């Protein structure tokens, strides 16, 4: 009984003896309008080189405005003046030497901040006692903007290079710590279990499971860290400096040289872009096991 019935239920066809029912609804042709594609609600296909459109438009407005005399050169210099000024600064060697000084500050601050953040994150991520001691103070530090510490740092370290580097390092430490620590804490416990069943020793466990597992978090922290480093640099160079890009811009302000200020801004922008790109490249290389899926 069961087989016969289930077959009947499975068969899509009508029972043979049943008269074909007239079904007027089904006979009616579907209205043509229904077949036309619906109005698209999404933003549609991307425009080729669309990302360049906005900046180019801005540049065009700037050029036309300057040429037509609508923009006061005391507020914003003409684009061509900016380009020639940049050329002059490079010819005099001023731009290069300022750039080198600034880059050195960022590099030293970044390296020491990353090292400190990494060590703190490892200690706090790998031991409960370490977490109890370290995590609280770092979270408190996180709530205080690094730049607000500058007055205190000036009192402690003076206005020399060490104050600048420490400010940058402090601004870098927090994101590196937060994201690395998070990466360590969110390593899948299933992998820890696996490490136990294949009897990894502690050192092997760190090398094969913990460090690669926390790497994505660390690299994300690095991207924030790099941005923070440039931000801190801009501030410390304008507070008190006798060299560097920020100093060059400060000096230009006192002489009303708008074009030099704009050159400085462009340089800062390029530096930010280049360093972010470098971290992203490192990310792609180091996380190639993940990229295979992302394409």
């Amino acid at each position, binding site marked *: *009984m*069961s087989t016969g*019935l*289930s077959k*009947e*239920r499975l068969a899509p066809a009508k*029972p043979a003896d049943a008269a074909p029912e007239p079904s007027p609804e089904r006979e009616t042709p579907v209205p043509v309008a229904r077949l036309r594609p619906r109005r698209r609600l999404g933003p549609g296909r991307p425009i080729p080189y669309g990302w360049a459109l906005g900046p180019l438009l801005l540049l065009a407005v700037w050029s036309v405005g300057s040429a037509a005399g609508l923009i006061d050169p005391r507020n914003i210099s003409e684009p061509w003046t900016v380009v020639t000024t940049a050329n002059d600064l490079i010819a005099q060697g001023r731009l290069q030497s300022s750039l080198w000084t600034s880059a050195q500050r960022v590099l030293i601050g970044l390296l020491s901040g990353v090292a400190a953040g990494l060590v703190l994150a490892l200690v706090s991520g790998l031991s409960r006692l370490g977490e109890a001691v370290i995590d609280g103070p770092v979270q408190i530090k996180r709530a205080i903007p690094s730049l607000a510490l500058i007055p205190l740092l000036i009192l402690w370290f003076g206005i020399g290079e060490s104050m600048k580097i420490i400010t940058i390092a402090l601004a870098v430490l927090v994101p590196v710590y937060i994201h690395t620590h998070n990466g360590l804490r969110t390593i899948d416990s*299933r*992998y820890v*279990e*696996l*490490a*136990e*069943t*294949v*009897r*990894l020793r502690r050192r*092997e466990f760190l090398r*094969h*499971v913990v460090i*690669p*597992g926390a*790497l994505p978090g660390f690299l994300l922290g690095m991207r924030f860290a790099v941005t923070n480093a440039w931000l801190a640099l801009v501030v410390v160079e304008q507070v008190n400096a006798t060299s560097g890009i920020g100093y060059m811009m400060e000096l230009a302000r006192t002489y009303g040289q708008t074009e030099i200020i704009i050159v400085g801004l462009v340089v800062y922008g390029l530096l930010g872009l280049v360093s972010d790109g470098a971290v992203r490249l490192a990310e792609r290389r180091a*996380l190639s*096991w*993940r990229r*295979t*899926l992302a394409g």
Partner: protein
Amino acid sequence: MATHTGRLTGTNAATVAEERPAVRIEGLVRAFGDRRVLDGLDLTIRPGEFVALLGRSGSGKSTLLRALAGLDHALTGAGELSVPDHASVVFQDARLLPWKRVLGNVVLGLDGPDAVERGTAALAEVGLAGRERAWPVELSGGEQQRVSLARSLVREPQLLLADEPFGALDALTRIRMHALLRRLCERHRPAVLLVTHDVDEAIVLADRVAVLDEGRIAADLTVDLPPPRHHGDPEYTVLRDRLLGLLGVDQLDQIDQPDQTDPDETVR
């Protein structure tokens, strides 16, 4: 022999005329808080024997396996438990480290200059020769589980613990994996404890099927069917029905159960 928890009594004295068992469990108790998941469980597995452990969900199958694997740090318990030093685990998910290539996963934690060679051989044995440099994400679910089998076998375990290893695979892949596992076990002869909820999988693969219920072994049946074991065999059906009965699945629950409604109504 290693003993994880509880009293250790006379593992050395146990050698009598009989063969020494690979796994011996006596009066094992494991509890989450007040709830006793395993309650005085006894089980013995001989070397090279393939035991399937069936049980309803929540019957404590995985708890037993984790106790044997030494993974139950957070539990309270008592009883005697002796397992070989060389035990390895195959989990339901292949559990490959995504940041290590296939070969790196197989030889994880292996020492010695021949580790790579052994790992490559193990991969060839599970039919994945040439995929050593692939990333785990590039493999299908079945292939990942093969890598995980290779990772277990390369350690030459005396005991293989498998926690529903084919539960996440599709039906066709599962059939192939059954054949592969059977072949590998015949060659390497580890004692095997396969936890599963699939009665057919248990009958097809195991020498013995144990049914876990209320924290104890409720039944322990020897599967004495000649290979190939398949549904057509009447003895197979008898065993299958008996095991399903032990698991609380009635005849009525099985197959496409006809509707209780009037057949005429269904047609109309």
